């Protein structure tokens, strides 16, 4: 059996990869994906722990999180579409009229 640590490391890697994606990608949609990755990293931890404790609630949480993430993505995509309508771009580093 694979020890829980492995899952945890994987989840941490997923989280960091997601965060890095958020930091370095210019395209808003890919940034969104990075965020999804981060959430899924956390989900993986939940599942791993739930499995370790032999309890169901971790799994349930993951379902809830997935729902929440879906809602977020829906909003996010809508905002990106509006962004494209308003500015004709989805590059988030060009969105910098509000500053200083």
């Amino acid at each position, binding site marked *: 059996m694979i020890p829980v640590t492995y899952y945890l490391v994987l989840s941490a890697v997923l989280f960091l990869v997601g965060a890095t994606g958020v930091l*370095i990608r210019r395209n808003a949609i890919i940034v969104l994906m990075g965020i999804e990755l981060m959430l899924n990293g956390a989900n993986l931890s939940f599942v791993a722990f739930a499995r370790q404790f032999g309890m169901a609630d971790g799994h349930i949480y993951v379902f809830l999180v997935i729902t929440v993430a879906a809602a977020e993505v829906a909003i996010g995509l809508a905002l990106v579409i509006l962004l494209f309508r308003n500015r004709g771009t989805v590059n988030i580093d060009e969105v910098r009229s509000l500053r200083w």
Partner: protein
Amino acid sequence: MTESFSYIWLIPFLPLLGAFINVFFNRNPRVSGMIACATVALSFLLALGVFFQLIGLPDGERSVDVVVYSWITSGTFAVDVAFLVDPLSTVMMLVVTGVGLLIHVYSIGYMGKDACCVRYFSYLNLFMFAMLILVMGNNFLLMFVGWEGVGLCSYLLIGFWCERRSAANAGMKAFVVNRIGDFAFILGLLLIFLYAGSLTYADVFAADPAVLAPVITAVTLLLFIGAMGKSAQVPLHVWLPDAMEGPTPVSALIHAATMVTAGVYMVARCHVLFAQSATAMTVVAVVGAVTAIFAAYIALTQYDIKRVLAYSTVSQLGYMFLACGVGYFTAGIFHLVTHAFFKALLFMGAGSVIHALEHALEKGKDPQDLRNMGGLRDLMPVTYKSMLLATLAIAGIAPFAGFFSKDLILLGAFVNAPVLWLVGLATGAMTAFYMFRLLFMTFGGETRLSRDETEKVRESSRVMTIPLVLLAVLSTVGGFIGIPHVFASGMDRFGGFLAPVFSGLPEAQVPSASVELALMVLALLVAAAGIWGAYTVYVRGNRVFDRLVPRALYTLSLEKFYVDEIYDTFIVGPVRKIARACWRILDAAIIDGGLTLAALTVRSMGNAIRYTQTGVVQNYALIMVIGALVVFAYITGYLGP
């Protein structure tokens, strides 16, 4: 006891009332003079009443405190508004109200036509009030009230013609120089209070000498500095000559007869204290002698008639301090009285001349310049004669008033400090010289006026000449109140009257009668020499001194030893510079600038942080991640709590 003098508060109060009425209720210039004179006359009468009541008392009881009300009470500090009636204050009251009355009357003639004469008489009355408070108060603080009050009136009256810049400046100079003296005076008072626990004369003077012993020299010297300011002693004399910017009766009243003698009065009043400090006595005597000769020397060459008299006043005040310094307080006060007579007269005579010439001289010619006068003897006979008497008196010619008082002073100096006696003697010669120079240049010789001008010169009106005559009489016979023992034993009524006041002093040494007589003769000879010198130069026109005296000495006298210039360079200028530096450098640049700098620093920090706010969302995320890493690292122990 107190009840019998309970009316005494009226003496100072009446002139105040006069001032009050004139300020608030009177718009009529003619009436203003009358009100002023009437109130002063009443005061004078009351003072006479006090005098007679006082001689009615036995010697030992001739010192009465009259409390009017409690003025300032704060814990242990308690000062009353209370008056002291004793021979000394009575003499001063009489001089102040008496001479004051004459000058008030004279002023009606002199100032009656001035547009602001209501104001003038209010000031004059106010001055009388302050001066009377000064001499009548029974404690140091009340004296100080009068002290400052006369200073104020002097300021206002010097600056009476304030539209003249010089008058305004002179007034301010007088006040400020006086303030320097007052500063010391206040410190003296504080020191007295700190050690004696009271400011009332009775308490302080009756206190155990040991109480004040540690600070007695400091106290007396501080008080004396105050006196130097008020009585224009070197080096604080500079304000008095400038004070001649005021109307001439003011010069007569304030800057000759009364206010400037306040210092002498104060020293005499505090003789108990001064007598305890040999150092202070020496200082008083030396300053007095130096001032006497110094001012006399300057007076030799001045051309402004009032300035000559002003320096003469300074010099005579020096005499008085000399007397006090050698322990002859009675002599000092005696000279104060006689000086009040003849110096007031001299000023009023000069005023009479100026008044006449003002109307006569062409525009642009200075009516006070001796070089514009001459030969007025016949044109203004009354003025001339009375001034002649006064000049004789001041020169110390027997039997005029000045002779007796000055003689007593010189006697005291001879006994206690022969060097100072020599100085006094020399001063006597100079006094005779410059006074007769003044007389000759004004009245003697040929007139330097044009024909037109001569025709316009008139003798002054009665209201002005009568006071002159009265004072001339006093200058002539005033000395007889204090005839020395040498001539007639027991005839020194003045000394006898004041004796209870100065009874505490050690018996003065008296030289033998022959020595005393020799001294008198010597003094007379010296005075005569001075008169002869003046006669030679100014009547005979012999330019003998031009050859004898080096030019530099003459210039030094003419330029008044450059004292004003020295003060300007070394005191006034630097203070002004320091003030500006304080403002511009310390205040504006360093303190305020420092604050501005601090504010700027904060602002620039703000701007620095502000511009990290780039607007790029990924930068924000980066900041968050860095923050999160730091937080994570810290809290999990990698940054070590």
